[in-house]
Each structure stands twice: as structure tokens, then as C-alpha cells.
């Protein structure tokens, strides 16, 4: 079918610059360390959406593509950050109207008694309309061990909205890889409605170092060459230990390093009574990093507790 008012050709380049999508993707490349497969996948999705838009202008495509996604990966690999960017990418391409991200977990969707779940889920869905609904640790929605669990009701409402109001919101599920796989096995309806499965790989040591340095720059701190060596040693040891959560562990470690730096400055100032320069306040020394417990303890005998 060809309506008389359709243009004979579309300028993809013009569409691209009109959508202002390139700056978002470039920002993603610059700010997120590593994650090469994720970035490649995001570019693919962006290109696909742009081409779909062009096809729609020529009357080749009738329905909007399904954009629900699933992000799998270990903790601290940047799933929430990428979801936020995804919302703004989809907004610029015109697939969601508002481009806000509503981040929820099981508690926000599932109620505590009969008849509580449906209104609660609908409330969240209403809030997410025109934007992206990000369900963190989505596999908790379904609890196979308890057949009277209300999670199933929530899943059914989600499925219905995901199918019927595809152009009103985009749903992104996130969680650990193996548990999400089990979740999809027991909910085939959910699996078939999700077009894009994106896996977030763990970071390597170099990437973690780059992330830590980026965080330090954002917090207006800096380390010297000696400190950088200490940081590298720290990462190599921390990775071996239980409860390692990639970038989140780095953030926590840096917070504790800042604590030790403040403590050091404080005791120095009490001793000498001299004024501190901006340089001294933003300098993190190797000693601040090497004071971490990770360096003193035998890795094998550690208890399962977070590290100070």
C-alpha cells in the first residue's frame, strides 16, 4: 500500500542528527569503562530504532517494535546506569514520550494480602507510563516454593501491559544471569515478550582501576604514582575475595580510603597546627590505601563479611 503523500526516500543522516542520539551514545562510550558488548548492543538497538523510524516514514512498517529488555550480570556491572541511559536514548528516538526511569523491586509491585497486589502494580505502571520501568532483581517476583505467592498476579498484570501498551512504556528486567534464566524458564510468557537480552560482563582489573580513577576525579581527589600502584594491588586482592561487587565495591573502597585520609589529615593537623592546602586535602597517599584490611589478612581465612 502506498499513500500518495509518502516521501520517495528518507535521509537517515538527517534523522540521526534530528534525534540528537549521537551525543548520548558518545557520552556512554566516554563515561562507562569497558562493557564493550553492551555498548555494541546499544548502538545496534539505536540503529535498529532509527531504521524502523525511517521505514515508518516510508509506510513500510506499521507497528512499533517491541523494546522490552532484560539486563543480566553480576552486581555493580552498571545495569542501572545503562538503564538510565537507555531511557534517554529511547526518549530521543521518540519511542517513549517522557524518558523518565522508574526503578522498582518486588516490594513495590507485590502486595501483602489478597487484593493488594493488583492496585500496587497498576500504581507503579501508571507512574512509569511514558518512560522506562526498571525492575531490579526481577526473579524475586516469582517464588516457585510458595504457590500462594502474590508475585504471579503481578507478573500477569505486567505481561498484559507489556503486550497491549507497548508504545506507552518499556520494561527492563535486571538480575543475576543464572537466576534470571530460571525465572524465564518458569515464565515462558515473559521470556517471549522480551526482545533484547543483554549480558553485562564482569570488569577486568585494568577496567576497575580506570573506574576508580574516574570516581576519584569526580570527587576531586587524586593519587600519585605510588598510590596508583597501591590501588592496583588493592584491586588484585579484593577481586579474589567473596562479596566482590565490581564498581560498587570500588566506590565503597574509595569511601573508606577517604575516611582514612581525613583521619590522617586530622591527626597531622593536631600535631603541627599548620593550615592545610587544597593540594593536601585532595591528595590520597599510598598509605591511605594500604591501610585496608585486604592487605593484612590471609585471603583463605576470611569470614563472609564486608571489608572495612
Amino acid at each position: 500500500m502506498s499513500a500518495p503523500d509518502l516521501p520517495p526516500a528518507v535521509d537517515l543522516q538527517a534523522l540521526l542528527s534530528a534525534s540528537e542520539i549521537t551525543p548520548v551514545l558518545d557520552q556512554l562510550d566516554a563515561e562507562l569503562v569497558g562493557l564493550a558488548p553492551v555498548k555494541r548492543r546499544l548502538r545496534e538497538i539505536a540503529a535498529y530504532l532509527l531504521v524502523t523510524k525511517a521505514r515508518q516514514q516510508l509506510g513500510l512498517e506499521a507497528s512499533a517494535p517491541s523494546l522490552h529488555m532484560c539486563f543480566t550480570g553480576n552486581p555493580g556491572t552498571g545495569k542501572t546506569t545503562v538503564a538510565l541511559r537507555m531511557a534517554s536514548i529511547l526518549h530521543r528516538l521518540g519511542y517513549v514520550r517522557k524518558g523518565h526511569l522508574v526503578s522498582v523491586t518486588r516490594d513495590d509491585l507485590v502486595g501483602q494480602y489478597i487484593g493488594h497486589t493488583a492496585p500496587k502494580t497498576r500504581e507503579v505502571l501508571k507512574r512509569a507510563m511514558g518512560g522506562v520501568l526498571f525492575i531490579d532483581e526481577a526473579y524475586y517476583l516469582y517464588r516457585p516454593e510458595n504457590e500462594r505467592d502474590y508475585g504471579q498476579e503481578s507478573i500477569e498484570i505486567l505481561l498484559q501491559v507489556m503486550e497491549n501498551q507497548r508504545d506507552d512504556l518499556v520494561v527492563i528486567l535486571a538480575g543475576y544471569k543464572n537466576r534470571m534464566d530460571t525465572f524465564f524458564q518458569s515464565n515462558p510468557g515473559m521470556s517471549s515478550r522480551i526482545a533484547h537480552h543483554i549480558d553485562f560482563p564482569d570488569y577486568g582489573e585494568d577496567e576497575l582501576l580506570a573506574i576508580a580513577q574516574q570516581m576519584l576525579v569526580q570527587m576531586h581527589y587524586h593519587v600519585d604514582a605510588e598510590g596508583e600502584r597501591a590501588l592496583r594491588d588493592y584491586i588484585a586482592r579484593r577481586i579474589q575475595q567473596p562479596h566482590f561487587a565490581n564498581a560498587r565495591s570500588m566506590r565503597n573502597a574509595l569511601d573508606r580510603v577517604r575516611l582514612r585520609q581525613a583521619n590522617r589529615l586530622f591527626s597531622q593537623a593536631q600535631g603541627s597546627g599548620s593550615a592545610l592546602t587544597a593540594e593536601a586535602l585532595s591528595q590520597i597517599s599510598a598509605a591511605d590505601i594500604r591501610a585496608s584490611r585486604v592487605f593484612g589478612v590471609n585471603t583463605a581465612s576470611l569470614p563472609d563479611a564486608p571489608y572495612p
Partner: protein
Amino acid sequence: MMTNTNQRLTQGQFSFLPDLTDPQITAQIEFALKNNWAVGIEYTDDPHPRNTYWEMFGNPMFDLKDAVGILAEINSCRKTFPQHYVRVTAFDSTRGVESLKMSYLVNRPTREPGFGLARTEVEGRNIRYRISSYATDKPEGERYGQ
């Protein structure tokens, strides 16, 4: 108001126009959201002009960013109260304003008998006027039929 133009209640915005369609309501809600006004839904079966405070259908929707969610709520109110008056309000919380900036009807009963005017002669042959809806003689919930 009291003359019952075209057998229709005329209160709030757009009430002399034909009923708003859903896309038109959506556009009005988008306008309210763009201005950061909180959209609310209210219903009543006592549309006396002095009846300022109608019943609220759910909470005011402070946290919604898109009109689709609000339209779904409007439709659910229409379904619950098909023979009531339903209006959509937009509340501006700016300090010093703190009042409704928009109010328009989105649902009305199929038959609207309008208002009657009663004259009472008082001392010195003065006249006191009173208006009342023909429908409000019946108890709440039965006024405009089921």
C-alpha cells in the same frame, strides 16, 4: 447556569463545547503536567453550583509524568460512576496560588434535568431565590439513574 442550556450542565472549562474526546482530554492533561500541576479526578451527583467540594476518586496524581496513566484512571472512574458527573482538576501548588488552575467535566449523566428556581416571599414583599437540582430530591447514588 440555571437556564440549563441545551439540557446540559455548564460548569468549569469547555462546558459549552461538545464533550471532550479522549485525545482532547489527553492533550489537556499534558498541558497541566507540563506546568507541574497535580491532576485529580472528582465525582458527584449533586452538581449544585455552590457544591465546591466533590468526592475525590483516588489521590491527586502528584507523581505521574504521563497522561496515559491519568486517562486510565479517568476511564476507571467513568466505569465506576457512569451516571455521575466526573471532572478533572489541575492543582497549582505554587506558593501564593495554591488553588485549581483547571477544572473540566469529562463525564455526565445521560439525562440532565437541570435546576429549579424557587421564589420565597419574605417580609416587605422581598423575594428570596433558591435553586436546587431536580435530581437531588432522591438520595445519593439514585439521582441520575443507575
